[in-house]
């Protein structure tokens, strides 16, 4: 789960970067990365990201942000996989520990990313 999550996240982020580069090339303007990395043009909530991802042509910032969100969620997905495994093994102690950690992480995400 960790590996797949990491690889898919990075693939999404790279896709966004390629789209950005393609827009720069079609606009006949070089990508000014040192200036762009100081830019505050970032998406900061999941509803905002969902809206940006539905746009066509694709929004490069939205694609990269989708990769970032997936990367940030990957540890939680790995914990969910561990929880499933512990339940299957009937290891109640570690199933409870994994569940407690997931609840703590979900609380953080729901609290901070919901708006």
């Amino acid at each position, binding site marked *: 789960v*960790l*590996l797949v*999550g*990491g*690889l898919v*996240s*990075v693939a999404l*982020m*790279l896709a*966004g*970067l390629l789209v*950005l580069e393609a827009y*720069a090339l079609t606009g006949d303007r*070089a*990508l*000014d*990365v*040192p200036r*762009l*990395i*100081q*830019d*505050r043009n*970032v998406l*900061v*909530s999941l509803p905002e990201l969902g809206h940006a991802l539905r746009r066509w042509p694709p929004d490069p*910032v939205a694609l*990269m*942000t989708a*990769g*970032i*969100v997936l*990367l*940030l*969620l*990957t*540890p*939680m997905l*790995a*914990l969910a996989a*561990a929880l499933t495994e512990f339940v299957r093994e009937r290891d109640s*102690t*570690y199933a409870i*520990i*994994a569940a*407690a*950690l997931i609840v*703590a*992480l979900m609380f*953080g*995400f729901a*609290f*901070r*990313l919901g*708006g």
Partner: protein
Amino acid sequence: VSGLLFLLALCASATGAGVLGAILGLGGGILLVPILTIFFGVSLPYAMGASIISVIATSCGAAAGHLRSGLANVRLGLFLALTTVSGALVGASLVGVLPERLLKTLFGLALLYSAFMMLRQLELEVRVVGETDWLAKRFGLSGSYYDHLMARDVEYRATRVSGGATAMFAAGLMSGLLGIGSGAFKVLAMDYFMRLPMKVSTATSNFMIGITAAASAGVYFGRGDIQPLLATPVAVGVLVGSFAGTRLLGRMRNATVRKLFLPIVLYLAGSMLLQGILR
């Protein structure tokens, strides 16, 4: 072309941070933040946001390999992550209540003491497996890994688990109170308090740092501190670096890892003491 070169330079720096992060169980933020701010002119909030991305990407790349090789112990990682996250939650709720300078001084002194203890056992390769304490037995905190250099399986059992868990809680507390990473303290707690092999300590730390970083990642994202164009080359570089670091760790001696780790602890101790005493 300059934009592409800039991205490649960012990616190369992140690769180096990923290699070291995977070996030392730290996530690479300690190297990446100064590199990004000094050499790439990145503002501190964005550098910190990139650092969180670096920690989680290192954890994804390294932990997956370490879990396969048996160096990372999932049960140990989850048990200790629970105490660290609990400490971080308590710490976050106490911000402003406890004096920051005193906390930094105490944290610096604790790190300095740990560095001294690490120095005394710098050459130690494998500890004799002693009696398991009751907490280790209750929570199944033991395991084994195949050591390529010794060409044999190395068995280990955690000891002094209550001390290790208390150190982890303290690390989480400091992390929540001061907003600093606690990767170094996690490794020290496993290596020194719980007497686990250094490679198991750093590999398990790699598994844990992703979980603890994810707990605070929402704050950085919600504040808009994760710049996608900066995060992308960092994530790519760190992930590639962490794959390489994972392979290297499997072929390193515990003593070598400890020698690489010691300067980081001394740097962190000095930095904390300076901030606590001088500021």
